[in-house]
């Protein structure tokens, strides 16, 4: 498991408490954080919504699977899916290797762009991870 100071937490995306990230701007992409991919381990399958699906903040929109577990993907925002990362069907390990780049999961059209401002920046997210790790 990575130490806190080894985590890659870029400052050009926003984070939610369930460890997803959102990139501001259009298109707006959603993925999972370096902390999340490290904790889940090697992914073996990513189940993604259909293009056109409506996402609701705080609700499940897909799953991430390792050899042993199934974990929900929770939407950090409200919006409509405009694209899914088809490359993950062939190589779910992209999420592990490049969680903020080639390992993005969906692109969404936000219902309300101001919603992004309610998410955490990198510093606040790091503090959140620190607190969560300390509780375990």
């Amino acid at each position, binding site marked *: *498991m990575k130490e806190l100071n080894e985590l890659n937490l870029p400052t050009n995306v926003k984070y939610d408490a369930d460890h997803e990230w959102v990139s501001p701007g259009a298109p707006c992409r959603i993925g999972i954080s370096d902390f999340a991919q490290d904790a889940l*381990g090697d992914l073996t399958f990513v189940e993604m919504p259909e293009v056109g699906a409506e996402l609701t903040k705080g609700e499940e929109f897909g799953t991430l699977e390792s*050899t042993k577990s199934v974990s929900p993907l929770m939407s950090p925002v409200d919006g409509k899916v405009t694209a899914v990362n088809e490359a993950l069907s062939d190589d779910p390990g992209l999420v592990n290797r490049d969680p903020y780049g080639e390992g993005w999961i969906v692109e969404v059209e936000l219902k309300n762009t101001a919603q992004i401002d309610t998410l955490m920046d990198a510093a606040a997210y790091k503090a959140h991870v620190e607190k969560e790790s300390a509780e375990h």
Partner: protein
Amino acid sequence: MSNLSKTVLNGVHAAMGGTLVDFGGWEMPLWYPSGAVKEHLAVVTGAGLFDTSHMTVILAEGAGVRAFLNYAVTKDIGSLAIGRAGYGIILDEKGEAVDDCIVYPLNEERFALVVNAGMGAVVIEHMKKVTGGDKLAWTDLTGKLAKIDLQGPAAFKILKPLVAGADEVFAKFPYFSFKGDFDMAKTAIKLTDGTPLLLSRTGYTGELGFEIFLPVEKAEEFWGKVLEAGKDYGLIPCGLAARDSLRAGAVLPLSHQDIGHWPFINNPWPWALPFDAEGKFTKNFMGREALNAATADHTLPFVGFDPRKVDAHESKVVYDDQEIGTILTVVADMAIGRVEGKVVGLSSPDKPEGFNPKGLVCGFIKVDRKLEPGTVVFLKDARRQLKVEICEDIRPGRTARAKLV
């Protein structure tokens, strides 16, 4: 995790970047930075190294130990030769599994049992209550020996140069046999540097390999030496996640998950029971009457059509629109895939060129009826309903019984 037990290699796992978790009260590596998928594939195509020192070695000594264990363990070990090992189940009078074990006859008055982590005291207490068990001397060797498993088709090539007198040691060494003794002062098997050990040609992955017992104080040095020797064979350290997916693909049970507090019968492990050719029991053993009378559920292996899984804790098995049972194990074996509908593995002789499997879901279900291989059932949780089929075997082309060459 300071209250957890630690194996002698705990510091090595941490230094190698292992993700350490609580496994039955032991702090053990779940995977290393290479990840559970690469670790699983390494064992199928090259080799993997596992620290399993959390497992328990028990010595049973005294006159009549063979006859006693032949009653207390399901496997018919009445004629199990010294130097051969046998897999069996320790049942209670209800025919339910206390634990599974490998029996090692060392001489006619001295046998060893290898049981699961934390089971030493439980098994010894159980054994002492079985008629005659209190007349034997029982010793739990937990913490005295390290256990390191080298598993995978390259295991023999990696190990051979490290073992003194290797040509002779490995000359006749079939699957489920062992060389040496659990008493490290007595064992005749040594590394070239003099380190004493017991070599057991067994494992929990379905692949060719050895379970190696050695003095705890030599474990770290040996671990490093084997990794170095295996560099060119793709050897990597592997954690418990890979061990679990490998054993499921090899149709091997996890004690207390796939076998447990229900009668040990109607399952894919009839070779652990003393059946004769007509399906009758060859001997008397603890739990026999209960098994004869049991109208127990059926434990069946299954394999799916893609790597997706369900959450085993909340799921049901659905057949013919009825809920007929529960899921015991559900994992993804990443070394297999379907080619024109057929399950093919990375070690299958008939795999297509460039075969790059995406993995298949597999495991065990416990249901209220017998279903023939090929029967389609659905695994259902809150999220999805997954189509899988009952099968006889899961990962093809396994190497556990391969010749040592």
